[in-house]
């Protein structure tokens, strides 16, 4: 590379970095504000901005979290040492509900999608291309179209309001993208690997479990992250198929309710919002390697 080109490259890198830094700041400020507000007492939140804590005034408290996480009656101690009782928002129950909904809603479609992708990519059966085309076409169908017909069928067989119902709904809605993503990855595994296993005497099921699944870990992980974030953040599907009753309500529903019932209680809303956010943030931080890998899946030779 000539020195001129290198100079230009450097200048371009500087520009890119500046843009990235600005974006990070723009995205981070509200989150930091949210976090700080959620640990400030009610009076402080209402009277001063969250940035004033950097001047050193103001207290910190975990009472907001106790209240939003607690059950019908939350017990906590205020700054003066008084024991107070107040109605909680039961987010801990919703937290468990969210997990109950999310974990199977991630695992089931991934397993089905991996098997389907393997079939589409490597097994010969009549109608393979047609079925795959249909699957890909389903990618562009908005799920809202399917809500009402599915709900009516659920009513008939009594699946509404059950976890099984919402697992199946998320499975169905997640499958087209899942199959498509995993197909792209699995179809890049060299043919020789399968043929070799075939000659070794492996049946398709063995090939799937012993070869395809382990080899697809990066793609499966990234699909898992996508599906997890989508299901965790979903409000619509949960509202339609699970209903709003408090024993099954997921975090997003509970948070939406809080916005309605506690519109002024910023200290509680921010704490609630942070409880909802914490899991996706953790997932992202711990699995970001796969996140990037997954987006790149198939584009470069592994």
């Amino acid at each position, binding site marked *: 590379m000539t020195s001129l080109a290198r100079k230009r490259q450097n200048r371009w890198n500087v520009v890119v970095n500046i843009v990235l830094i600005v974006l990070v700041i723009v995205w981070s400020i509200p989150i930091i504000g949210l976090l700080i507000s959620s640990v400030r007492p009610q009076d402080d939140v209402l009277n001063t901005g969250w940035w004033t804590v950097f001047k050193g005034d103001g207290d910190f408290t975990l009472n907001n979290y106790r209240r939003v996480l607690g059950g019908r009656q939350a017990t906590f101690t205020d700054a003066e040492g008084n024991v107070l009782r107040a109605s909680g928002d039961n987010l801990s129950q919703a937290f468990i509900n969210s997990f109950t909904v999310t974990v199977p809603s991630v695992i089931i479609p991934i397993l089905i999608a991996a098997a389907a992708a393997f079939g589409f990519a490597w097994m010969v059966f009549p109608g393979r291309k047609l079925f795959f085309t249909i699957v890909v076409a389903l990618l562009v169908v908005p799920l809202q179209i399917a809500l009402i017909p599915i709900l009516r069928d659920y009513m008939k067989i009594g699946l509404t309001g059950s976890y099984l119902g919402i697992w199946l709904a998320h499975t169905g809605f997640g499958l087209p993208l899942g199959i498509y993503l995993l197909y792209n990855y699995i179809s890049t595994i*060299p043919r*020789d*690997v399968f*043929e*070799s*296993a*075939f*000659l*070794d*005497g*492996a049946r398709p099921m*063995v090939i799937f479990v*012993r*070869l395809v699944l*382990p*080899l697809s870990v990066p793609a499966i992980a990234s699909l898992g992250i996508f599906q997890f974030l989508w299901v965790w953040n979903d409000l619509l599907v949960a509202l339609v198929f699970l209903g709003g009753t408090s024993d099954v309500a997921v975090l997003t529903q509970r948070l939406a309710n809080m916005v309605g019932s506690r519109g002024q209680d910023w200290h509680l809303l921010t704490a609630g919002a942070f409880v909802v956010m914490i899991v996706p943030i953790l997932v992202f931080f711990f699995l970001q390697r796969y996140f990037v890998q997954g987006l790149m899946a198939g584009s470069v030779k*592994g």
Partner: protein
Amino acid sequence: MATVQLKNISKVYEGGVKAVDSVNIEVKDRQFVVLVGPSGCGKSTTLRMIAGLEDITEGELYIDGNLVNDVPPKDRDIAMVFQNYALYPHMTVYDNMAFGLKIRKFPKEEIEQRVREAAKILEIEELLDRKPKALSGGQRQRVAVGRAIVRKPKVFLFDEPLSNLDAKLRVQMRAEISSLHNRLKATMIYVTHDQVEALTMADVIVVMKFGVIQQIGGPLDLYNNPQNKFVAGFIGSPPMNFLEAAIEADGDDIYANEGTFRLKVTAEQKKFLTPYIGKSVTFGIRPEDVSFSNTAKDGVTINGTVSVVEPLGSETHVYTSTSKSQVIGKIEPTLVPAPDSKIYLIPDMAKAKFFDLETEQVIN
């Protein structure tokens, strides 16, 4: 061990492309048979049909005398080594080699014993705990071979196993596979596009082109007695020189006349060339069968101009332009003729070949 017999085997792909056309090959027990030909000649397809990875459209395939057309690959008792190794990237070398045995539910001790034994033969014992990506190309190929060895199959199939290796390693692995064959005393069928591999490794070479077998024979047999122009040109490096020449009688003698020079044929060649008097044939001479001369001599020398000289140390290749074509000659390394100078090459006429211009079959 095992014999393999292909009887009139054909492969027609969807859309009517005939990849393999009525192939007959008989592989004897413990033989090393090499299928060789340019890409697209059907050699790999033939091998894949033997393995069971491709259906046989027509014909019969026997392994050890049993018809196996409809026997699934895993029950044919064959093992195959692929061009790009086809190792399982997420498994260690040990697990790669043990995979086939585990699936066949061999007892653990026996798997261990067989893998260690194969690793010892291939000198990869210290690599058993590594993953394929931590191995070099040559090591990977060894593991791929090891995976075949542990199965103790009736027949080993190799599909261009050395093409992905660099030239030096290829020569080394070539010798190793040959010695492996001697050691295991197994029946092996080997596919390659490299005629050097074929010549050096094979007991029997099968030369293919466009799905049709051109000739079957031992390495020297193919080299010395090619049946047609294709085999003559394919076996040997640099390839045999071909010149179009008219056969003419001059007194008692018969000459092959290229235009600017003519070559007197031997008494034996005279017998079968007599019917061709007045016609043109393809005259073939191998580069190693010509020698250098300073002067032109009617009936003896090929006359031309030097176009390229390639000194190789052990010999010199000289590309000679005649009036119509090019002749490559292997001459002594001390001789380095200058480009564009006149050159005279004396072909050893006893080793020259004549091919029919239309059928391209050898005339004899």
